[in-house]
């Protein structure tokens, strides 16, 4: 009986949600005074950034990005503190099926390529699709591959911690430099350069590269913590 009521309530809610969202014209331009046109115009003219998504993420709404980076940092910290008592020593990690030679050799070959792709994606975040979050995630998958292939592969927690802390500190520092140089937090204080050049967009690519380092280090840390979790 209880289940039926729950199902009915869920169905009613689902219908309401669907009926509301069905009539919103997503993707059709009907904003009379929204932020869209301003963003499109100022990405190219004001910031010399070729990728509008990047300019929104890093400049117009850079404060949100700082917040999201912090959320990730906190999630990684929280995981570390909760799983602290269940952490293995490095040698003790047990794998049910050790990887075969082919997987190991292939991983070794792929690893540098994956890292290179990740680095490329976050360095060119302001020019092409992608950016810090995506590049960082790609790098973390590279480490995941190595951790899965080699039972004794280990990453230094201290180095990961230093990389993520330094990236975070530099992010906030660039924000504060903008505060000193331009008058508001995270404001661009460097020359914006030529549209389409690698060195363009002022602080936008620098911040996105820092985000890439931070996300890469944090996700690697999360994967490593979870892989080293002890079974009880």
């Amino acid at each position, binding site marked *: 009986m209880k289940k039926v009521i729950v199902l009915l309530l869920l169905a009613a809610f689902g219908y309401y949600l669907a009926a509301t*969202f069905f009539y919103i014209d997503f993707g059709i331009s009907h904003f009379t005074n929204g932020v869209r046109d301003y963003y499109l115009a100022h990405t190219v003219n004001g910031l010399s950034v070729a990728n509008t998504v990047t300019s929104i993420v890093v400049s117009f709404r850079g404060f*949100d990005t*700082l917040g999201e980076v912090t959320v990730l940092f906190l999630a990684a910290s929280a995981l570390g503190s909760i799983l602290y008592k269940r952490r293995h020593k490095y040698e003790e990690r047990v794998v049910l099926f050790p990887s075969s030679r082919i997987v190991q050799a292939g991983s070794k070959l792929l690893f540098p390529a994956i890292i290179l792709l990740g680095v490329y994606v976050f360095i060119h975040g302001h020019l092409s699709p992608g950016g810090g979050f995506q590049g960082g995630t790609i790098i973390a998958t590279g480490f995941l591959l190595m951790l899965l292939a080699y039972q004794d592969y280990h990453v230094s927690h201290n180095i990961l911690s230093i990389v993520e802390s330094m990236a975070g500190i530099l992010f906030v520092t660039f924000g504060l430099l903008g505060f000193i140089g331009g008058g508001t937090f995270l404001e661009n204080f460097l020359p914006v350069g030529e549209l389409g050049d690698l060195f363009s967009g002022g602080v936008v690519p620098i911040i996105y590269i820092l985000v890439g380092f931070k996300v890469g280090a944090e996700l690697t840390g999360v994967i490593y913590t979870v892989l080293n979790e002890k079974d009880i």
Partner: protein
Amino acid sequence: MVGSPVLFIAIPLLAAFIIPLLGMIWKESVRILPGLVLVYLLTLSINLLGYVLDNGPIIEIIAGWTPPWGINLVFSAFSGFLVTLMLFLGLLVWIYSYRFKRNVDFEPAKKYFILLMMLITGSVGIVLTGDIFNQFVFIEIVGISAYALTAFYTGRDSAEASFKYLIMGSLSAGFLLLAIVILYSQLGTLNMADIARNIHTVKPVYKITALIFFIVGLGIEAEMFPLNGWAPDVYSQAPGPVGAAFAGIVVKSGVYAIIRIVYTIFDIEGAFDFLVIIGLITLLFAETAAIKQIRMKRMLAYSSIGQMGLVLVAFGIGTEAGVFAALFLMFNHAIIKSLLFYAGSYLVFNSKEKYINDVSGLGKSMPITSFLFALGAFAIVGLPPFAGFWSKLYFLIAAADSGMIMIIALILIVSIVEIVYYFRVVNKIYFSKKEAHVVPQRPTFNALFSMIVLGLIVIIIGFFPDLITGILHDASRDLMDKTDYINNVLSITH
């Protein structure tokens, strides 16, 4: 001007990223640095609040984009008052827990202080921001820190409480995001002032759906009935100071967000009546549940929910007097409930099941803690001459001015219930025979310091309410003046 509101976010974030590095060199720094940051921010916010009361609100834009294109922070009398209150309580939580975690390993202790600092920063950010999506990001920051701090003892029960909170919190985040999507799809902007200016052009169906989703999403954070199922578990399982931080800081930011949405962003009159009704239900439900509790912290948790219901009723009155009373109630609840959590968790410190019965006869062996608990209990039920009396009095006056006689009667009946369960505990502490198996626990110097500061505030505000009413009047006037808010934010130039 002495500083900028953006420092309230930037400095703690910088510190949170520095702590892991500094901790490698000097272990004690992970405890000291958050305290230094909180002291600095508290002085900054007191200075800014003084400036704001004389010169009007400070609007801080970020990344050089003026509203509605960029994100902005608003430090006005209303938000400034709450920020100062939160940072003050945060500082006390830090002082209280400075030695509390001595027996814990370095690694979890480091994480504890980072998470605690980010819990406070996130709450401050929710109050300061002038952008609904930015508010969502800060709610995420508060949420993640809160889940982790709840599970800090890594026991079975605390994991369960944390998981419950996680599920509820994620659900609320989903609702919030849907509400933001609806508003953005209709107006093409995320800035609160810009939305408030144009909200009358939105079709009622979208407006009401968005409002419902906002209230559901934020109601979980603000302990609103029936979305508060997480609260008793979380309060009873989290470490003592963290419970005080939830009651004093996190819940306040949730209530602030609801109030900002109802008062400033939406122009729906019915929302005020809704606040009154839902507040009353929350109050009745929580106080009847509180009287049945046999465990100390669960009782305090239900009492905290009830107080939040009262605050929602006061905001729902919708007049300036109502807002004034609500802010006074919030202030008192933050101070007194923190005191009760600190003193209460020491009273049941060595009791295994944390039963209320275990405090029997502790009045002689723990005189100061017992006295402070009794002080808090008298103050929260509204006995003169303590701080809680004035806020309840102003609340009843505000309700009477608006002709809500039924509500007054209900509130007075509920107050009697409150008196019953608080006095039962005080009675046990002083007039019952001591339970043999409970060993009294001496509070640490830091804990004693925090409790005595709070106790002094309760007494001082009780005798001299004028110390706080001036600023509360400014804050409530600031919240009521919606056009002023919109004009201030949208007229800012870089």
